[in-house]
């Protein structure tokens, strides 16, 4: 691909001001000036980071400094941070979550949106993302197929699809002592494996 085409492509991507995503958490009060409130939630925006190189670099850099990190923390201000477990066996830690995305004001539907709602995020001139409405498109499955180009073989399929949904009654009793999780608790799954209760 010619250099000019590369540059043009990069410029186009840089100008992207809209992303389709899926809410991973229920909106939570982010800030308030006493009169108005700003709610925010985490949004799964799908695979945008090639091979999860950035997250992998962060973890590797921490390991290089002797700070072994297999997890990193997520959580809104004032909340107890929760661990997001990273699976070191994966070829690159793919983080597809845009954290603490503010919800535009006067949008009751969004504030009360349940996890898993498809939303559209728009970037304002200051570079901040905010959820502005519901979308008709959302990130779907993300599956990786390792190929050995020497032996021409295909390895085991890696499913990195991020999904979020309400926990079933059985899952509530299985993941925590029964009764400690409220009805309506939801969780984030990656490849069908529960990685975080939200």
């Amino acid at each position, binding site marked *: 691909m010619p250099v000019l085409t590369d540059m043009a492509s990069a410029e186009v991507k840089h100008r992207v001001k809209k992303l389709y995503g899926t809410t991973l958490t229920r909106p939570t009060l982010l800030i308030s000036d006493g009169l108005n409130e700003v709610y925010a939630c985490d949004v799964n925006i799908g695979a945008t980071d090639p091979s999860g190189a950035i997250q992998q670099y962060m973890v590797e850099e921490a390991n290089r400094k002797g700070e072994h990190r297999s997890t990193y923390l997520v959580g809104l201000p004032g909340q107890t941070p929760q661990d997001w477990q990273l699976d070191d066996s994966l070829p690159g830690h793919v983080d597809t979550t845009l954290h603490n995305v503010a919800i535009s004001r006067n949008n009751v539907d969004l504030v009360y949106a349940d996890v898993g709602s498809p939303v559209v995020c728009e970037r304002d001139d200051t570079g901040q993302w905010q959820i502005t409405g519901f979308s008709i498109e959302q990130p779907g499955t993300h599956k990786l197929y390792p190929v050995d180009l020497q032996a021409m073989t*295909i390895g085991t399929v890696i499913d990195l699809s991020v999904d979020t949904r309400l926990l079933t009654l059985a899952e509530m009793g299985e993941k925590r002592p029964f009764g400690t999780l409220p009805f309506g608790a939801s969780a984030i799954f990656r490849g069908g494996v529960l990685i975080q209760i939200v």
Partner: protein
Amino acid sequence: MDGRWKPVSRDSKKDVKVILHPTAAIWEVRRGMDPGSDDSVDLSEFVSQGTQSVFEASVTLKFNRELFGDAQPAPNQILEIQLWQSGIWKPIWLGIIDAISSFTLQRGERSMVITAKTREQQDVWKSVKRLTPMFPQMTDFGYIAHRVARSAGMQGDEIILPQSAFSTKHSNTQMADMSAWEMLQQVCVPLGWSPFIDGLGRLRVASRELQHRTPDIILEDDRLIKVGGQRQRPPMSRVRVQWLNPTMKKYKKMDQQLGQSQTVTMGWFLPYWKRTFWFSDDKTLRAENARINWSKDHSQSANLFPQTPFGAFVSENFQQIAENKGRLLLINKAFAVALPLAINLIRATATRTDKVMGTINVTQPTLISDPLGGPVFGTIPVDGTMLHTVPTPVTGSVFESIQLAAWVYIMMTIQNGVYEIWGTPYDWVHARNTSEAFDSSVPTYVDNVMDIENDFIVDESHAKAVAIRELIYSARSANRWSVTLVDDPRIEYGDILKFTDGSQLFVEDVSRQLERGSEAILDVQGFIIPLTKTSSTGVIDLPSPVSP
């Protein structure tokens, strides 16, 4: 492989014709010009040097005065290159003149360089943005490619596409703001095809599948002159195919009021009231579990209509009749309508009168007062002779009071109801899936990613096949090789050449010299396809590119 040709004998010389067609269309040249309409101008005697590749031909012409004026080649004219074989001249390449350059006029030398290109490099293919018709579900990909090619000016016999194995799965598909060539590529990627214009100006496709392909041409050692490597690029190590999942996913919003509240005036005067209730003003909101909200805080309708010993006067019902609308139906119970009718009937039957010869003949006691009947104080002449006296006016007053009370009660049952319809809105959304094939041996710091966005992918297994095929193709094509052969006009873009050592070359371009009498050699550029290795369990089959 172009089956019209045979390999050229070793150490033979080229016999080439360069012909200009000032007026003919490219398909007329290919079909063969009729005697009398042949506009061919043979430029061969002016050719001092020239090259022809798959996509371009460049010819330097030296002349005296022959190519001045109307005889001078011009852009958009057809340039034809013919080779002599088996006793006849046959076209091996047709192109459209793109430029006349290096036009030189000096004492003793007049020259120009003609550059011609294949059709797909014209603006009509590469620059002009287009809009396709809307293709419904189950439209064959080959048909879409055919339509795109026709829109760019191709004749039916110039489009040679194999049978495609896929059809559209989305409810409707339309491409917009893309050039015709981009559209073709978009359609061809899921099929594993590379579109190209062959030597005769026809649209064809080459398979991008590299595994388990039968070589098109097997070359013996004596036809190989030279092998050289060309620029090596970092190979592609990761291909991400992003595609719009045709299967939509349902998501629900929170339970909420749908549409606007309905205010209804209902009473004894209406047998029923019915209205279609849309869940939103634009009539597009879908919802489920739609119902009347009976909470007094929201709907001022519940049981407002007077109760009777026989139940409510009006029954209030809401029924969802479509995903975006319902029907609010109020039914006046039968007695609410029948009651006034019954009262009037009583009045009518209570005063049965017979007309006899122009006078009234009261045949039974009247129960109801004037003007319809009794009580009557006095006498009524009957038959002009007999007087009849009504003795008990009190009975009529009682019945009159009852019927008046009933009338007022019924008329008081006019009410305004305010109905709120609540439900759970939902919608169907497309998921954009990502299927990613990557070279597991490449470390992250040299990862080379290519993104493919294609909404013609039908499902996950199809996406997997496309991702793996494109990864293999892209990784292999990073390392280009050049092979010099004894000229073989059969070779064209997309062919696989097999050499005696077993190695195979995917042909991306060819180049031959056009000077008459020059050595008959051909430079072939392409990339090497490694031999498929076998494991202990045998050959590992990659997913087929043509079956989902």
